């Protein structure tokens, strides 16, 4: 019976498919309606101010206003690329971000996996709350603590170093230590907070999969590897792609508070570089140009990363 009606139904389907777009929108009008408020918001509050990026191509005079300020074309970008320091700063920014990707990105995942394995509810809740505390401590205070900690005269770390018979190390003026110190601080500050999104993703994992894994004889590690991790892979990939998009961002506060001229060679990144130029010159236009440069690079990287992820079936779009 079905065999004879099939060709008729599929013909009808094909006819419908011809008036695709309009029909689709009408059929799914709710979906498009839902998009309206959000995108209206983005249009007004994100895209309209984005027009202000023309500042990067002008010499902004606040009094004259954006429209009447004179055009200078690519002058700011020329300045940026001609500057000898640009390439050092670029290198520092990239290397620091790579360090962060290497250590600060996986850390919350590992911690989330560990937390997920805790069965004792009270321990779980209390430890989670404790783990979020560092996120709220401002960088100013944290940097002060780190400086105290690493002080060559009164710091705890150097007391241990001396007890071991060595001379005190002045950690914060040695370029070799800078990245380690900075990334460790960032891990410490962000790892607890970073677990939240992964824990949320883990709640979506079907518990019966654990049961079947156990039946198949998997131990705890194997359960994590074959059930939990795959369950949060999409989340990991999404966050990774987004992180790549901001690879030239390093966070101004923590670098500024912990760096000094002795560590400029590894520590000076875009944010601090622009800050120092801005101090001397206060040029909003220049800062806008640097920002635009970073945004463009980020855009390209995100597109590439998403394309790569797509080939693994894990794209954002």
């Amino acid at each position: 019976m079905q065999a004879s009606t099939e060709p008729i139904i599929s013909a009808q389907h094909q006819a419908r498919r011809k008036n695709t777009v309009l029909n689709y929108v009408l059929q799914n009008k709710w979906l498009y309606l839902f998009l309206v408020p959000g995108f209206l918001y983005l249009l007004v509050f994100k895209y309209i101010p984005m027009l202000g990026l023309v500042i990067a191509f002008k010499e902004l005079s606040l009094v004259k206003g954006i429209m009447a300020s004179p055009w200078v074309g690519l002058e700011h970008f020329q300045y940026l690329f001609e500057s000898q320091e640009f390439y050092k700063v670029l290198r520092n920014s990239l290397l620091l971000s790579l360090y962060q990707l290497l250590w600060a990105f996986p850390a919350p995942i590992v911690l989330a996996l560990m937390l997920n394995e805790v069965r004792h509810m009270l321990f779980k809740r209390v430890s989670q709350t404790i783990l979020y505390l560092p996120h709220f401590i401002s960088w100013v205070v944290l940097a002060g603590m780190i400086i105290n900690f690493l002080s060559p005269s009164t710091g705890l770390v150097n007391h241990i170093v001396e007890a071991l018979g060595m001379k005190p190390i002045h950690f914060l003026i040695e370029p070799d230590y800078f990245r380690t110190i900075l990334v460790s601080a960032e891990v410490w500050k962000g790892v607890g907070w970073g677990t939240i999104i992964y824990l949320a993703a883990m709640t979506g994992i079907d518990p019966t999969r654990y049961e079947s894994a156990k039946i198949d004889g998997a131990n705890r590690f194997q359960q994590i590897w074959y059930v939990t991790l795959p369950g949060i892979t999409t989340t990991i990939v999404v966050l990774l792609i987004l992180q790549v998009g901001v690879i030239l961002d390093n966070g101004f506060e923590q670098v500024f508070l912990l760096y000094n001229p002795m560590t400029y060679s590894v520590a000076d990144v875009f944010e601090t570089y622009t800050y120092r130029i801005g101090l001397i010159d206060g040029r909003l236009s220049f800062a806008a140009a640097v920002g635009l440069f970073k945004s463009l690079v980020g855009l390209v990287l995100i597109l590439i990363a998403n394309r790569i992820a797509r080939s693994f079936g894990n794209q954002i779009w």
Partner: protein
Amino acid sequence: MRIWKRFEWFDAVNYTLLLLICVIMLYPFVNVAAVSFSSYSSFLENPMMIWPKQLSFAAYNQILSHPVLLSSYTNTIIITVCGVAIGIFLYIITAYPLSKKHLKGRNFFMVIVIFTMLFNGGLIPNFYLIRELGLLDTLTALVVPMLLSGFNLILMKNFMESLPEELEEAAKMDGASEPYLLFRIIVPLSMPIIATLCLFTAVGYWNNFFNAVIYIRSVENWPLMLFLREIIEGARMQEISGANAAEVGKNAVVPETLKYATLMIVMVPILCVYPFVQKYFVQGITLGSVKG
């Protein structure tokens, strides 16, 4: 015997490691709390203390007795509640269509979202916009700029994508409309991500002070963070302007302990909110409904 059977080395190691990590995480918080209740001199003597010395509420007094505290606290609560409520609503209805793989124009929409995450006009254009909308010096100006962030939107869309499609099909066959599907079925299943975003956006609003610097003109509209920052910066400025102790009198400046006390005042309320959100991070509870 049953207890021994459930004991696994894995757990022993896991719990111990977590305990260690918690101690490391806890130390600075304990330090901050201790310093905030100590006198400035005992802080100077031992900045790494974990127990208050020369118990002193001077820093808290200075903050809590300030007339602006109450209004700024209220402002921040209003801003946070409104911002989270409206924001979550926007996230839900915007992420849901984007989570449908079959949505026509999906790539285009996503690129639009990604763009907003990367490009920003900066201080002056945003100021002009808020001014033209007549929102200067209103609390609305503190809510609106942070309502929708591309990052959070992508997280929610991602989560919704991972929900099984059979749900949608089953509901549609029962004749459900799209809104019903979204609010009655998808949203309850998405509580983990909703809870997460509530937390993220709430903290974002709570900690923000720079928008207030730009958009707010009257002290009555200051949010909490700005008020706290001003106390610290104002104290520092007094130092620079050469005020000596005799001049300043009873409201003596105590910058470090002040800083730490403001940190406590900021942290504690959020920590109180978190336990309510925690229950949504329980595994498996949401997926149970699929089978049933």
